[in-house]
């Protein structure tokens, strides 16, 4: 889908492959418990929804996304992690997002992608742009 009719702005559909749970998503069970769902139901709900990138900020290439199913909204951790691995997919309040580079962070981590969201040496340093439509695609068995 493109929104080019307006002002030459193109919106892309981007699929993000994600390994949910386990060491890649240590807070998956926290989100599940908060939502009163099983972890499988959280994965199904998170990957079924379509998200829109509202804006970039916090870290280079960090996309704040709207569209998180209301049930999955989970408050930020009271004690932020000092080191969140690059590619971690998190839930912070009513938003979901992906950490482009390793650093501190307070969102609940439910999975991880190998896509590089920011690479300053690429001609287009960012992967996601405001307005892009995002789907998360679960990879493999979440329990491993």
């Amino acid at each position, binding site marked *: 889908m493109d929104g080019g009719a307006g002002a030459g702005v193109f919106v892309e559909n981007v699929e993000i492959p994600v390994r949910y749970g386990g060491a890649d998503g240590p807070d998956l069970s926290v989100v599940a418990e908060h939502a009163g769902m099983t972890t499988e139901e959280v994965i199904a709900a998170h990957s079924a929804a379509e998200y829109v990138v509202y*804006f*970039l*900020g*916090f*870290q*280079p*290439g*960090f996309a*704040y996304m709207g569209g998180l199913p209301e049930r999955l909204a989970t408050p930020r951790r009271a004690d932020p992690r000092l080191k969140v691995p690059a590619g971690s997919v998190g839930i912070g309040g009513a938003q979901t997002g992906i950490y*482009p*580079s390793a*650093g501190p962070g307070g969102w609940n981590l439910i999975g991880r992608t190998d896509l590089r969201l*920011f690479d*300053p*040496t690429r001609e287009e*340093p*960012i992967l996601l742009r405001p307005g892009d439509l995002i789907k998360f695609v679960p990879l493999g068995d979440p329990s491993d």
Partner: protein
Amino acid sequence: MLDIIRPGIQTTVQDLGRHGYRHLGVAQCGAMDGPALWLANRLVNNAANLAGLEMVAGPIEIRFERAAWFALTGADFAATLDGQAVHSGWRNHSAVGQVLKLHGAKAGMRAYLAVDGGIAVAEILGGRATDIQAKFGGFKGRALKAGDQLPLGPTSHLERRIGAWQAEWSPQVRVLPGPEFEQFSPDARATFFEHAWTISAQSNRMAYRLEGPVLTRNVSGELLSHGVLPGVVQVPSNGQPIVLLADSQTTGGYPRIAVVIEADLWKFAQAPAGRKIHFVETDLDGACAAREEWRHNRYRFELSAYGNHG
């Protein structure tokens, strides 16, 4: 080439900042004391935005692997070149193989070194500044280590030694009221300007945390995330102000009680933990006049050093 023998703590390659990429979430970075790096570069007739070194804590030792003109500005680090005193704010010459030692700040906090030709690291996203958080730019995206060898640009043909006046530090920092200023209680608004705020040890290139009386906000509820810039003064729910600086993240969500004017941002660069600062209210005209004054100082320097205004 510059040979880093002893790197000090958090010595980084910095220019005047990476501009035009905040919409991608990319921080500005660059010298915390911009006017000091500007002056160091112009003392050796570099373009003002070439990369130099920002130094926070000594001892630091650097060997010149080519003959070079260099200048130190900002905090006085009691520097010597092969044992001879080197004064801050002057153009100096080093022969091949001479060693520059910087012992540490006598007053202030950050010193800047510019070498003729500049530090010739690759430009990434329109700048040569080190982004320590995102780990790119500068020299390998990190603070310098012993054994690092920094490439230099082409040397210039300079002759005489010249010096320049450097702005004197004072604890008065001028601010404009921020977008949420009116949401703070009348008491908090008065206290913000009347109290001397202590710079906390929890301060770095991203932000300085200040300690003092708790500032209370009359309005409850969280704000939507919004864009922020170096100079924005946030007050999280603990009531203690945070001043965003060169490496500031691009977005935030805390109420903005004030914004430090550009002309006074360098004062934080030269204020170590424990130092006290005062906020002084100004308006847009005051901020513009301060910027004009800084421009005028630069013009005066160009006129006396090079007989034109660069």
